[in-house]
C-alpha cells in the first residue's frame, strides 16, 4: 500500500504567486477603471495631486511601517494627528492675535509643537509597550482615547481654520507639491535607517523573533521604544500637514484613519506578524495604492458613504493578503 491519498490542499495557497503581485494587479486594474470612468484621471497633473493628497497620511504610514516591523501596532496615530493639529491651531490663533504669525520663527514654532506633541504620545506608547509590556493593541487604544479627549477639551470642540499653512501643504516647489517632496525625503531617510543601519537591521531581527533577539543581546526594549517614538513624531508631523491641506480642523479630523494607515502599510507588504517589509518600495506602494483609490473615488463623485465601504474592503483585503502570505514559524 504505497499509494498515498492526495489530501486536498488549502485552495487559497494556490493563489500565493498571484498575491505576491496582488497589489500591483489591483493598482493597474483600478488605474484603468478610473481612467476609463474619468478622462482627467490619467494625467500628470492628477498624478501629482494624488501624491500631494496622499502625502500627510503617507508620512504616518512610514512610522506605522516601523511599528509593524517589530510586530507592534499603533492605534493612536490618527488621534495623535488630531491633537497635534488642534495644538497648532490654538498656537496659531494666539499668534494671529499678536500679529507674529507668518514670520519664519512662527513656522519653526508650529513645527516644533507638532513634532513635540507626536513625540510625547510616542514616548508614552513606547514606555507602555516596551517597558511595561502592555499589549500594543491596548496600550495604543488607551492612548487613542486620551489623545482625543485632550484634543476635544483643548479645542472646546470648535472648528479651527489654518489657511496660513496652505503654502506648505498645498504649495509647489519646482513644480512639485512641497508635501510630496517632504514625503519622498522621509521615505529616503527612513528606508536608509531600516535597510542600512544597525538599528534597522536589529528591528528586523526583533520582528522575526523577539525572544531570540533578547537572548543574543539586542536591546529589544530600547529599540521598540524608539520605534513608537518615531511613529509618534511622524504622526505629529502628518497632523500638521493634513491640517494645512484641509485648511480646517473639525472634531472629525481624520477620525478612524489609523486603520487606513495600517492597511496602507500592510497592502505595501509589511506584515502584521512582524519582521517583513520595507519603507521603499513597500510602504510607498501602499500609500500610492490607497491614495489612488481615494483620488479616483473623489473624481467619480462617489457618495461619502461609499468611502466607508471601500475603506472596509481595503482593510479586509490587506489583512487577507498578509495572512495568506504568512507562513507561520519559518525556523
Amino acid at each position: 500500500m504505497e499509494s498515498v491519498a492526495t489530501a486536498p490542499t488549502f485552495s487559497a495557497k494556490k493563489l500565493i504567486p498571484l498575491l505576491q503581485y496582488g497589489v500591483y494587479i489591483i493598482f493597474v486594474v483600478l488605474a484603468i477603471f478610473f481612467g476609463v470612468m474619468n478622462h482627467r484621471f490619467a494625467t500628470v497633473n492628477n498624478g501629482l495631486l494624488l501624491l500631494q493628497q496622499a502625502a500627510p497620511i503617507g508620512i504616518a504610514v512610514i512610522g506605522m511601517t516601523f511599528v509593524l516591523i517589530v510586530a507592534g501596532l499603533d492605534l493612536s496615530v490618527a488621534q495623535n494627528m488630531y491633537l497635534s493639529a488642534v495644538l497648532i491651531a490654538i498656537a496659531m490663533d494666539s499668534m494671529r492675535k499678536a500679529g507674529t504669525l507668518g514670520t519664519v520663527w512662527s513656522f519653526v514654532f508650529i513645527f516644533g509643537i507638532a513634532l513635540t506633541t507626536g513625540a510625547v504620545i510616542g514616548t508614552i506608547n513606547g514606555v507602555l509597550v516596551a517597558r511595561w509590556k502592555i499589549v500594543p493593541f491596548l496600550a495604543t487604544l488607551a492612548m487613542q482615547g486620551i489623545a482625543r479627549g485632550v484634543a476635544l477639551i483643548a479645542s472646546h470642540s470648535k472648528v479651527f481654520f489654518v489657511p496660513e499653512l496652505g503654502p506648505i501643504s498645498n504649495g509647489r516647489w519646482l513644480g512639485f507639491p512641497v508635501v510630496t517632496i517632504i514625503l519622498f525625503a522621509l521615505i529616503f531617510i527612513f528606508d536608509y535607517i531600516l535597510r542600512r543601519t544597525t538599528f534597522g537591521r536589529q528591528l528586523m531581527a526583533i520582528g522575526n523573533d523577539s525572544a531570540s533577539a533578547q537572548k543574543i543581546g539586542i536591546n529589544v526594549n530600547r529599540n521598540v521604544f524608539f520605534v513608537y517614538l518615531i511613529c509618534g513624531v511622524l504622526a505629529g508631523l502628518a497632523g500638521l500637514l493634513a491640517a494645512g491641506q484641509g485648511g480646517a480642523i473639525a472634531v472629525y479630523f481624520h477620525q478612524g484613519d489609523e486603520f487606513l494607515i495600517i492597511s496602507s502599510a500592510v497592502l505595501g507588504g509589511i506584515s502584521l506578524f512582524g519582521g517583513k517589509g520595507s519603507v521603499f518600495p513597500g510602504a510607498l506602494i501602499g500609500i500610492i495604492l490607497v491614495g489612488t483609490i481615494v483620488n479616483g473615488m473623489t473624481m467619480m463623485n462617489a457618495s461619502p458613504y461609499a468611502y466607508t465601504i471601500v475603506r472596509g474592503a481595503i482593510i479586509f483585503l490587506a489583512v487577507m493578503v498578509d495572512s495568506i502570505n504568512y507562513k507561520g514559524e519559518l525556523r
Partner: protein
Amino acid sequence: MNEETILVLKDISKSFFGAMVLDNISLEVRKGEILGLVGENGAGKSTLMNILGGVLPPDTGSMELKGHAFTPANPRDADKAGIAFIHQELSLFSNLTVAENMFIDDLPTGVLWSVQFDKMRTEAREYIEKFGVHTTPDTKVETLSMGIRQTIEITKALIKNAEIIIFDEPTTSLSQTEKDNLFKIIPQLKDQGVTIIYISHIIEDVFHLCDRIAVLRDGYLVGVEEKDQVGKNQVIKMMVGRELNQVYPTVEKTIGDVIYRARNIQRGTAVRDISFDLRVGEIVGLFGLMGAGRTELARCLFGADPIDSGEIEYKGKRHRKISPELSIKEGVSFVTEDRRQEGLLMPKTVKENIVLAKLNDLQERLGMVSSKREDQEADKVIKELNVKVKDKNKQAAKNLSGGNQQKVVLSKWILKEPSMFVMDEPTRGVDVGSKYEIYTIINNMAKNGATVLFISSEMEELMGLCDRIMVMSKGKIVAEMPKSEYNQEKIISYAIGGVN
C-alpha cells in the same frame, strides 16, 4: 584541579517543587575534549546545562570556569564567559541574510551609522568556506536547510570566541548528510581547542564523537568514563540502571470481547494502512521510535487530525469521519504527553482544570454550574488519584510538579468516566513515584472495564503494564505480541528494522 581542566561543577543540586532533579552533581570538563552527556528523558541533562548556561540558578553547589568562580545570572553572562549553546531550536532570524545573522548583535558600521555590508560579507564568506557550507553570505536564512542553519549557529559561537560549545541533541532535525557534515565539523572545532559538551540519547553518535562519556540517571551522575574503557552495553546499563524486574502494579481483571476495531487507517505517509482490535479491559501498548508515527496514529484515532481513508468500529458503530467531539461523546479520552499545550490550563486552579471536561454534566437549571457539585466531584477524584495539592481552589496547575500535573490531566478525563483511553506518553517528565501511581490508575481503569491504548517510548513500562504490545515502524504496525512473548531485543529490532 589540574591545568587542563576548564570547567568544574561542584555539588550541584536542583529541585523543582520538592522533586529532586539534580542530586549533588560534580563534574570536571577538560580543556579541548569532547564530553558526551547521556541519559534517559528526565535524567536531568537539560537542567544541568540550563544551570551552566545561566538559565536556572542551582539550589546548592558552585561552578568554576578557568579557575575563577562562575555564577551566571542570565544566558548573556554565560555567553560573555565564552559558553555557547547550540539548541535544537536555533536562534536565527529567518528574514535576515546569513551574514546579517552572524553579526546581528554587533554589526560593523561606518559613515552615517551605515552597516558595512561589504566587510560583513567578506568575513562571513571566510567562515562559510572554512566549514564548507553550501550557501552565500547574502542568502536569506529562511531558504536554508536545518543543517546549514546549524552550521551558521556554530559559526556565530566561534565569532564570539566561544571556548565551550554545548550541543543539545543537535542531530534531531538533520538529514543523514547533514549529520555527517556536523560530525566532520565537531572534531575540527576540537582541533582548534574548543571544548565541546555533546548531549544526546543516541549512544552510537556519542561513542563516535566523544572522548569521555558522562552518564546521568534520575538526577545522579552515575559515572564518567573514558570512551576506550567502556562498552556500549555498559553505558546503556548505566543509563537504565534498574533491572527489568522492577515492580509494576498488577490487578486481577478479565479481558472481554473486542470493542474497538480500526481498519486500514491511513493519513499521508505518517500512518499507513493500520488495522487492529482492542478488547474490553485490555491495556495495549504501542511502541515505536521517534518518527514511527505513534503520535500521528493516536491523533487520528481521537479525531484530532483527519484520516485520508479507513474506518473505525466502536461499540458496534462504524465511523468514517472521526472528530474530537464525536470521540468525547462516545467516551474516548485522549491524554497527551504535552501537558502544557493540550491538557492543562496552566494559570487556572486545580479544581477548574479537573471539572473542565465535566462542566456540561454539572449544569443545573438555566445552565448554571453548581459549585457545590464541582467541589464534590473534584474532591472525589483528587482523593482517588492521590493528587498532591494543598488547596484545589487556589493552587494553579503550573505550580504542581510534572507528576501531579499529569494526574490532574488524568483526573479531568476520569471524571467523564470514559470507556476508552488513548494515552500518548502519559508518564514523560514524571518522577518515578508518580509513575507508579499513574500505572495503578491505568490498571484500575482497565479493571473497571475501560480499554487503554498506551503509547510510550519506554519499553520497560510497556512490558510491565500492557497485556499486549504492538510495534510501529515507519507508519505501519510491524509486530504484535502478547505478554508471554515479550522480548526486549525482538521489540527493538522490529522498531528499528521494520518488517523482517
